[in-house]
């Protein structure tokens, strides 16, 4: 029995970054908006209060703020020839839950995608020839350019009070910022954060080698800040409890701090928590979504919410699941290469570097912010010549330490015991005296890395789990070998007591250790309806009143954390909806 509700102008699915931004922009345009969030309310004052927010066991290791894998997870396999098994508990990535989503427990690294990354296939083809791109690598252009997106990056950075140093202001390169970034219309709203020993040591070493270090752009506010919406942030206190935690100082930008205080009081907006969207009712004839079906997770009762406009702003896996489960668009077929829903699932290739240990220094890892430290972009994207390297893409190399929480963050020199007296001695000696120099790389799309529906395993609503077929490829491993060697070369100049041998991921994708919550793809944007799910305004080619937000729209993943690019594209899409779509509802582009 489904209770049918009164139609609203717009329904927004998911109350993370993109859902809260779209809700805000649409209510400002005069629409009545209902926000549906599967989780509960989370307010910083109640839920992120000191001292209990600084509980490493509860938040980091018992996953307090994350998606509950008991009721919803994904199944995973490395290749189509294998049987996928369910990810029974979280490890490699940590999707969010509750109001604020992963935006309440991210670390705050906020980037702008590089100019070449927007036109990736065209760029590499033009510069190195079509043969430089492996035959089974299915990278695509985004259908938009950096210049298109720049005003929206600026808007998102100002919403979040990003702390950083510009490296390219209106075409003028500025030493000390990222000189490889595309031209900015304005500097960051806040100055860079303070620097710790790891950051300054890396910065000096990198500079001496002729590289171009700059402070990690961060949503941890270096100063108290009021954003253009009127929401206020506190100053970061470097508590070292950032990623995986809510912020008690309101110093980390989040939907809860930077958007919801102005959105929730708006009478045009209604938030419904414990509203778990199960399906979109798709009218194939009209190419429209008529309503969404959601389950009240407190009672199990089902509701149908009709809406003129539907914004899908869940996480990557749920965006893709809702499209496939609701029959919108053509599911991707890895054999024929046809279809697009589920195509180009990508991840992040992390951990290519070394650890340095200093017998006579104090790195104080516990004094830290989430997005913290010093970075070089000299080996990222196509910022360097790839001739003869045998791979395309690259990554950024950084040092900084985001925390010293002792259950999870302890490094020991190679060969140290894992337990017993020797382990205690080594841990006591080195806990405060190390940091990583490490590369984080792009992950490009391949024909056989994709998402579809699992034939066996179900979620708590009885729907199939998303099945991930994914493995790292030679292109990733070659980047790993390259970045780990560059990291080692920099580290060797630091006069460290111990520099570990360079390491990178050389085996199969491992679901157990945390790597990054930077899953991308599945509902990708592009300029051709046969190879993308969404047009450049993030409007579904097959449902003109459906707009899909977030990292599921990325045709492939760059080296950077996804929040900056997905925040900017949310504003870009909101602008297209408000200035174009609402005036004349229908497809904004014709195939």
């Amino acid at each position, binding site marked *: 029995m489904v209770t049918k509700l009164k139609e609203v102008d717009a329904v927004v699915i998911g109350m993370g970054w993109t859902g809260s931004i779209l809700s805000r922009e649409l209510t400002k345009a005069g629409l009545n908006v209902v926000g549906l969030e599967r989780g509960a309310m989370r307010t910083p004052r109640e839920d992120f209060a*000191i*001292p*209990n927010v*600084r*509980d*490493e*066991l509860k938040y980091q*290791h*018992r*996953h307090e703020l994350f998606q*509950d*894998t*008991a009721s919803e*997870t994904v199944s*995973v*396999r*490395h290749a189509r020839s294998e*049987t996928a*098994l*369910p*990810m*029974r*508990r*979280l*490890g490699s990535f940590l999707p969010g839950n509750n109001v604020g989503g992963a935006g309440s427990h991210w670390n705050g690294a906020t980037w702008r995608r590089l100019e070449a990354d927007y036109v990736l296939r065209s760029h590499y083809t033009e510069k190195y020839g079509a043969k430089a791109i492996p035959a089974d690598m299915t990278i695509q252009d985004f259908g938009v350019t950096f210049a298109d997106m720049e005003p929206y990056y600026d808007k998102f950075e100002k919403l979040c009070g990003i702390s950083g140093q510009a490296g390219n202001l209106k075409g003028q390169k500025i030493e000390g910022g990222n000189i490889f970034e595309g031209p900015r219309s304005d500097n960051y709203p806040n100055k860079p954060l*303070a620097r*710790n*020993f790891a950051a300054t040591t890396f910065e000096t070493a990198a500079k001496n080698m002729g590289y171009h270090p700059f402070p990690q752009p961060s949503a941890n506010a270096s100063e108290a800040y009021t954003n253009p919406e009127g929401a206020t942030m506190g*100053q*970061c*206190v*470097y*508590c*070292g409890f950032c990623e995986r935690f809510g912020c008690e100082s309101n110093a980390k930008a989040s939907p809860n701090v930077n958007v919801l205080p102005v959105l929730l009081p708006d009478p045009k907006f209604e938030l419904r928590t414990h509203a778990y969207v199960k399906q979109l009712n798709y009218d194939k004839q009209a190419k429209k979504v008529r309503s969404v079906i959601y389950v009240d997770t407190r009672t199990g009762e089902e509701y149908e919410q009709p809406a003129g406009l539907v914004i899908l702003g869940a996480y990557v896996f749920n965006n893709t699941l809702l499209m496939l489960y609701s029959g919108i668009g053509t599911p991707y077929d890895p054999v024929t290469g046809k279809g697009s829903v589920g195509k180009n699932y990508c991840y992040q290739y992390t951990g290519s570097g070394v650890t340095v240990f200093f017998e006579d*220094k*104090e*790195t*104080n890892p*516990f*004094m830290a912010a989430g997005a913290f430290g010093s970075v070089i972009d000299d080996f990222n994207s196509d910022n360097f010549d790839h001739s003869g390297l045998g791979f395309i893409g690259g990554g950024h190399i950084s040092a900084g330490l985001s925390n010293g929480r*002792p*259950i999870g963050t*302890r490094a020991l020199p190679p060969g140290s015991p*894992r*337990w*017993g*007296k020797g382990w*205690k001695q080594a*841990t*006591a000696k080195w*806990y*405060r005296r190390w940091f990583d120099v490490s590369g984080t790389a792009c992950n490009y799309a391949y024909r056989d890395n994709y998402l579809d529906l699992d034939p*066996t*395993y179900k979620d708590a609503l009885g729907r199939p789990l998303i099945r991930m077929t994914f493995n790292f490829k030679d292109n990733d491993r070659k980047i790993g070998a390259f970045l780990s060697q560059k990291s080692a070369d920099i580290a060797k100049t630091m006069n460290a007591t111990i520099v570990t041998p360079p390491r990178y991921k050389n*085996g*199969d*994708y*491992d*679901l*157990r250790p945390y790597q990054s919550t930077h899953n991308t793809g599945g509902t990708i944007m592009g300029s051709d309806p046969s190879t993308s799910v969404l047009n450049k305004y993030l409007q579904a080619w097959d449902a003109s009143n459906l707009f899909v937000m977030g990292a599921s729209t990325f045709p492939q993943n760059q080296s950077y954390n996804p929040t900056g690019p997905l925040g900017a594209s949310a504003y870009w899409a909101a602008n297209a909806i408000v200035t174009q779509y609402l005036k004349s509802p229908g497809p904004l582009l014709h195939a």
Partner: protein
Amino acid sequence: MANEKIPRRDFLKAAGAAGATGAAMATGLAACSPEAATTATAAPAAEPEVWLTLNATEAAFTKAAVDTLIPADELTPSGTDVGLATFIDRQLAGGFGNGARLYRQGPFLPGKPELGYQLALSPREFYRAGVEATNEWTKKTYGKEFDRLTPEQREETLKALEAGKAEFAGFSSALFFDALLTLTQEGFFADPMYGGNKNKVAWKMIGFPGLPASYRDEIKTYYNKKYDKEPQSIADFS
């Protein structure tokens, strides 16, 4: 052998049941325990020894295991004396132990290790199976259960488990060892309110200051300088 263990188990059960009656009983128990006799810095247990979920065999195993993983030395008292058996008992008795946030739908199929835990057991059930399998292995190898081995034999046993060389039915001994080590180190470094890390000994050992309210100025004033403040726990702020 077998007739030796039964009276001791009965005694432990009786001690557990009577534990709430007072410190005198508990002190007596601590004096009798093998751990107290073999560790250099045995702090007299002032609190009664009670268990939420561990049975007597599991409690004896757990104390012996955490004392092997975290032995008493000049840095800290033993694992048991800093509360790690209590920590493990409480974790296994609660939501985590009973499978909260664990996807438990079948079919349960063996898979590559990279795909993560695939057993049908909750952490509590898995712990029970792991203790049973370890004791079976030590009985076969040394003729005794794990908690009755010498410190050297306990070390040998845990090394065999860690390397996956102890043959367990149904799962790798390394999988159980990793779960045991993870729980032990979680308890050692977690906030003391969970029962381990008593007197913040682990935080003192490494120089982790716990949770001061702010490092806004200290991030600069303690640049490359030892921060030697007394650690603060959640209870200190409450």
